[in-house]
């Protein structure tokens, strides 16, 4: 599904290398988690994959089902089926949540050569999905993320994911700023979307999210590289001993 090979990335504005040769393959139907200390390059990886400005790929490749992601505009990557759940969802005053989502859904359908979704079908679908995530009608009408609590913003991300039905989902620290109940709700939303055809890359600091979204593979990232990979037990090891031991071992 997602294949990253020897990815090197530096900041466009300064001569600072952030990713120094990331190799990672996420298969369809699998959940991979990336853990790592602050500044290890986790969020940069998610931004580079989704196409944010400000980064320069100096070496390596990233493909989604064989398509070269790095050559594409962010919206083209989205239409191919890549989805990034933001660590900090952006507030957009003046743009209604519903309008935004409908525009996005139909833009992606159009890009894939499908018919646009009718207003009534869209409404039916979004209401059903919003209900599962305990997002009320008022939140759908309000401007995108404006005045939303931390939990509401993250649930809104998952709602977008549910509506857009991507093939490859990247969750960037989706647990940050959430209490246990909110995290459970978000995790349930994600678990409901797990399917054979869909891959997940869950980026997190803490093991606690992985109690709720059970990963198949756990990677430890440090200083711009994946330094260790293993099963779910690797996350527990981090939880018990911190990163220091693992990193010392990996060097």
């Amino acid at each position: 599904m997602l294949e990253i090979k020897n990815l090197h990335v530096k900041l466009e504005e300064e001569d600072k290398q952030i990713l120094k040769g990331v190799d990672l393959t996420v298969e369809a139907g699998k959940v991979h988690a990336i853990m790592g200390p602050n500044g290890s390059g986790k969020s940069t990886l998610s931004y580079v994959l989704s196409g944010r400005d400000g980064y320069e790929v100096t070496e390596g490749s990233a493909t989604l089902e064989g398509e070269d992601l790095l050559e594409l505009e962010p919206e083209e990557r989205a239409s191919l089926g890549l989805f990034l759940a933001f660590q900090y969802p952006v507030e957009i005053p003046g743009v209604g949540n519903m309008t935004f989502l409908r525009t996005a859904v139909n833009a992606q359908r159009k890009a894939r050569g499908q018919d646009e979704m009718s207003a009534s079908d869209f409404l039916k679908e979004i209401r059903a999905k919003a209900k599962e995530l305990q997002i009320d009608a008022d939140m759908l009408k309000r401007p995108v993320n404006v005045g939303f609590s931390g939990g509401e913003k993250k649930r809104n991300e998952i709602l977008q994911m549910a509506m857009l039905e991507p093939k490859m989902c990247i969750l960037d620290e989706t647990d940050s700023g959430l209490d246990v109940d909110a995290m459970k709700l978000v995790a349930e939303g994600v678990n409901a979307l797990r399917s054979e055809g869909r891959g997940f890359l869950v980026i997190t600091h803490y093991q606690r999210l992985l109690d709720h979204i059970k990963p198949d593979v756990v990677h430890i990232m440090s200083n711009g590289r994946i330094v260790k990979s293993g099963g779910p037990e690797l996350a527990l090891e981090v939880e018990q001993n911190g990163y220091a031991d693992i990193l010392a071992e990996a060097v």
Partner: protein
Amino acid sequence: MALPQAKLDATDARLATLSLPAGGWAETARQDALSRVKAQGLPGRRDEYWKYTRPDGLTAPAPTSAAIFDESEPPVFDEVDRLKLVFVDGVFDAAASDDLALEHVRLERLADTSSADIHWARDYYGTLEASGQTPVARPLAALNTAFATDGLLIHVTGKAPKPISLIYHHQDPQSDVMLHHVIRMDEGAELTLLENGPAAARFNMVLEVEVADGAAFNHVRAQGRDHERQAATHIFARLGRESRFKSFTMTANGVMTRNECVIELTGDDASAHVAGACMGDGDFVHDDTVFITHDAVNCESRQVFKKVLRNGATGVFQGKILVKAGAQKTDGYQISQSLLLDGDSQFLAKPELEIYADDVACSHGSTSGAIDEDALFYLRARGVPHGIATDLLTLAFLAEAVEEIEDAALAEEIVTRMEAWLARRRG
């Protein structure tokens, strides 16, 4: 003080092309207005009030010719149930208009009544304009009072059952038009006035509105289309106790638009809202000049102006809130913002507050900015193409001004026009 020779010459040259309509109830007002023009002189570049906008095209003896817009898009407000009144190059077109009849409203043409000696409008015509000449001179408005040959005299005695819609067609690429409307709103009366259309190659419009106690006046205007046309408009309003005044203008296209709005809150607990949203491309110049005077207790005023500028377009805002001594509990708000879609466009703003009362709340703000890159990326990451995402954010930027339109259907109509304008320019 004697006028500078250049100004005197320019004023004389313009006046030489015009002749003062003689006789009738408006004659005195016209002569007084002509005296004002002669005393003030027409605006020139060196005038402080015209520092950001070149008045040359508005004051020249003859207008610059303006091509007619290609009418591929149906006119705005077409779907609205309204009383349609049509002017073609400044002349009322009875055949194309509905009858001058509406419940609780008395409607007459300025041109039809000009020979009468007595008319209710005599107490109003040029009166609000004259009082709006201090502290800042507005010579183009005085010129209009002196020479306007057509317009409507509208006396509203109750709640008008539907909007009055003034439609200004432009057919002659050389037309030079002055229209003067007078609206008198009796106590408790209600009216919505719609205006649209380019009107002329050069258009000078004055609207005087007397809003009596408890009356409500709503105004929604769509200016533009013919890009080469030039327009100077003035709204003068005087508001009585507990009255409400709301005016919104959307402007798209136009090499020169100067919209002045002069409002005096004279009765307690009144409210005045003036808003504008404009979208300009290339050699577009748009100037909003607003002057709101609080001269009563517990009144509210809002000025909300948003400008989207691209390819070297220019936006100007001069807005003032004057709170006179004794106008306690005034609530004044003013915001002017521009969205600059490239580095060539410019926004020039002069927000002013002048306050002589000590128990007031007045705030103002003015900003210029570009599209929010974080928001743009967020939209694109969800699959919304760059152009559509930019348009969505642009409409969001304009939303605060559009929200000043009370009627949801009219607001929707305006948004549709904005979307279409942006879509036509999408890269």
